[in-house]
C-alpha cells in the first residue's frame, strides 16, 4: 500500500507539471493584457511600465514560467496583478469557506441522494420511483443560479428560515459554538444549491447501483439463506452497491469547486469560486494559476484518496 501510494504520488508530479505548463500557455495565449483592463485617463505609461516590471511581465514567457514555478514550489504564489496583494493572503481567507461549503454540500448529497436512490430502487418503476426520477431530471437540468435564486426567495425571503447571503452574520460578536452554528446556518442554502445537481446525479447512480446489486446471485443467496429483507438490503445489497460511490469522490471535489463559482457569486459567499471568476475577468493570472493548480491537485489527491479508500472498503482491491 505504501509503495502504491508513493508510486501514485510520483505519477502525480509530472501530471501537475504538465497541467501547470498547459495552463500557463493557455493564459499566455488568451487575449487580454492583465494591465490593459486598467483603462483610466490617469494611468500614465510609466505607471503601467513599472507595474509590468514589478510583475515580471516584461520578461519572455518561458522565463516568466520558471520564475512562477520556482516561487510556486516555495509556496509563494505571487502577487495579484489586479489587487497587488499576495495571492496566498487572498486565498487563505477564502479556502476555508469554500471547503466548508463543499463539505456540507457533500454531506447533503450523501444524506439525501443515497436514501432516495435506495427508495427508488426498492420499488423500481413505481409511482415513487417515477416521481423521484422526474425530480432528478429537473434538479439536474436546473441552472445553479436559478436554483440559488429560488432557494433564496423561498427559504431566505418568504419563509425566512435561513440567511439569504454571506457566510456569517455581520458584526455579530459571536464566539465559540454560537459562531460555528452561525456559519452552519449561513452555509445551508448555498450548500443545498451546490448539492442539487449532485443529488440528482447520485440519486440516479445509487438507484442503478442498488438495482444492479439486487439482481446479483449473492443477493438471491442471501435471501435463500432466510435473511430478512432489511438485512439482505443492508448487509448484501447496499454494502456492494455503495462502494462505487467512493470513486466519485475525487471527481466531486472538482465539480464542487466549479459549481461554487456561480453559487458563491449568487450568495455573496466569499469563497475561492467568487475570487476565481473575478480573477478571470480581470486577467489576474497569478490568482487564476494558483486556484487552478490547487483545484487540479485537489482532484488528483481526491482521486488518490478515493482509490485508497476503495481498497479499504472492497476486499477485492489490493494495491502493491
Amino acid at each position, binding site marked *: 500500500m505504501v509503495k502504491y501510494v508513493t508510486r501514485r504520488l510520483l505519477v502525480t508530479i509530472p501530471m501537475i507539471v504538465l497541467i501547470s505548463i498547459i495552463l500557463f500557455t493557455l493564459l499566455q495565449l488568451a487575449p487580454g493584457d492583465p494591465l490593459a483592463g486598467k483603462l483610466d485617463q490617469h494611468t500614465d505609461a510609466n505607471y503601467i511600465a513599472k507595474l509590468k516590471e514589478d510583475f515580471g511581465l516584461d520578461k519572455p514567457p518561458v522565463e516568466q514560467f520558471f520564475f512562477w514555478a520556482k516561487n510556486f514550489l516555495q509556496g509563494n504564489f505571487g502577487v495579484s496583478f489586479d489587487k497587488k496583494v499576495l495571492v496566498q493572503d487572498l486565498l487563505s481567507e477564502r479556502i476555508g469557506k469554500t471547503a466548508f461549503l463543499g463539505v456540507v454540500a457533500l454531506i447533503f448529497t450523501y444524506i439525501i441522494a443515497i436514501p432516495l436512490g435506495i427508495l427508488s430502487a426498492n420499488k423500481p418503476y413505481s409511482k415513487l420511483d417515477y416521481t423521484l426520477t422526474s425530480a432528478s431530471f429537473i434538479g439536474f437540468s436546473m441552472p445553479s443560479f436559478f436554483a440559488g435564486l429560488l432557494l433564496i426567495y423561498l427559504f431566505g425571503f418568504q419563509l425566512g428560515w435561513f440567511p439569504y447571503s454571506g457566510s456569517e452574520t455581520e458584526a455579530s460578536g459571536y464566539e465559540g459554538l454560537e459562531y460555528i452554528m452561525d456559519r452552519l446556518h449561513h452555509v445551508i442554502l448555498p450548500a443545498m444549491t451546490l448539492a442539487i445537481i449532485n443529488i440528482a446525479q447520485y440519486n440516479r447512480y445509487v438507484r442503478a447501483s442498488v438495482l444492479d446489486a439486487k439482481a446479483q446471485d449473492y443477493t*438471491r*443467496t442471501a*435471501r435463500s439463506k432466510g435473511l430478512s429483507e432489511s438485512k439482505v438490503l443492508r448487509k448484501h445489497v447496499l454494502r456492494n452497491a455503495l462502494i462505487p460511490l467512493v470513486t466519485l469522490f475525487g471527481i466531486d471535489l472538482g465539480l464542487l469547486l466549479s459549481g461554487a463559482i456561480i453559487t458563491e457569486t449568487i450568495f455573496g459567499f466569499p469563497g475561492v469560486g467568487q475570487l476565481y471568476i473575478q480573477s478571470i475577468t480581470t486577467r489576474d493570472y497569478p490568482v487564476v494559476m494558483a486556484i487552478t493548480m490547487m483545484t487540479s491537485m485537489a482532484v488528483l489527491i481526491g482521486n488518490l484518496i478515493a482509490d485508497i479508500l476503495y481498497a479499504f472498503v472492497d476486499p477485492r482491491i489490493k494495491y502493491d
Partner: protein
Amino acid sequence: MSNHLLEVKKLSKYFPIKGGLFKRKVGDVKAVDQVSFYVKKGETFGLVGESGCGKSTTGRTLLRLMEPTDGQVLFNGIDLTTLKGEALRKARRDLQMVFQDPYASLNPQMTVEQLIEEPLNIHNIGEKKDRQDRVLQIMDTVGLNKNFGGRYPHEFSGGQRQRIGIARALALQPKLIVADEPVSALDVSIQSQVVNLMEDLQREFGLAYVFIAHDLSVVRHISDRVGVMYLGRMAEIAPKEELYTKPAHPYTQALLSAVPIPNPRLKRERIILKGDVPSPSNPPQGCAFHPRCPKAFDRCKVERPEMMHLGGEHYVACHLYD
C-alpha cells in the same frame, strides 16, 4: 405421495410485458407455464432444457426467490407459495440454492467464514463457538482448507468458490438443494470434482437435489430422474435410464441425438431440429414444440398436450402417445 419431499403443481411464472407511453401491460412472457413434478427424499431430480426454457426460473420460483404467478409448491406437505414472513424464513432453512456463477453468488465483501456462518446466525443455531466449529467442519467436508476461512471469495479458484457456495448451502443442513447449473461455469476437469462432491454429500446427509443443467451428460451422471423442459413447459419426465434409452418426446429424442457418445464406433442418426426456439412471449398454439417437431400432426397445432403417464415413473406431454 407421502414420500415426495417436494411436489410442484402447475407452477407458473409470468413476466408482464409493458409497453406504450404509460407502461401498460400488453402481454406476458410465460417463463414457466403450468409445470408439475415431484422430488423424493434423497434423490436427484435433473431438470434440462435449452437456455431460455424456464428451468432456472422454475428453480428460483420453487424457493420463492421469485414470486410464482400461479400453482403450488408443496414441501413436506406445506405450500410454500402461501408462506409469509417468519414462516417463510423458517421454511427456507430446509431449501437451499447453489448458483451457476459461484463468484457472483458470494458477497464479495464477506470472508468465507462469514459467508458460511451467516445462515447459522440468522437462524440462531447454536452458540457462537459452536457455529465457528460448525463452519470449520463444513469447510472440511467440502474439501476447503480450514485455514482459509479469513479469505475473501475472489482469492479462490472457480472450483473452490463453488465449494464455498455448496458449503454455504449446506450450513443449515437443508433437505433439498436447488442447484442451478452448478458446474456449467467451471472448467471440465473441475466439473466432475464438484459433481462428485455433491454426490458424496448427498450420501452423507441424505440430501435431495434439483439439478438444473443444459448439459444432458452431466445430468445423466448425477440424476435419478430427469425432467425435460421446452419453452416453459415440462415435455417429459422419466427415470434416468429410461429417458436416455427410451426417450418418448420428439424433443427429448432430438436433444439426446445431439449428445456426443464416447464410443466412436457407435453410430446414431442425428435429428436436426428446424427453426429457432420461439419467443416465450408469443408461444405457438397447441403444443409449443409443434413448429419444430418432425412428427407433428394437425392436433398438435390446436390442442396443448396434457402430461400422460407412460407407465412406471415415465410421463410425457405429447399427442403421439394419446
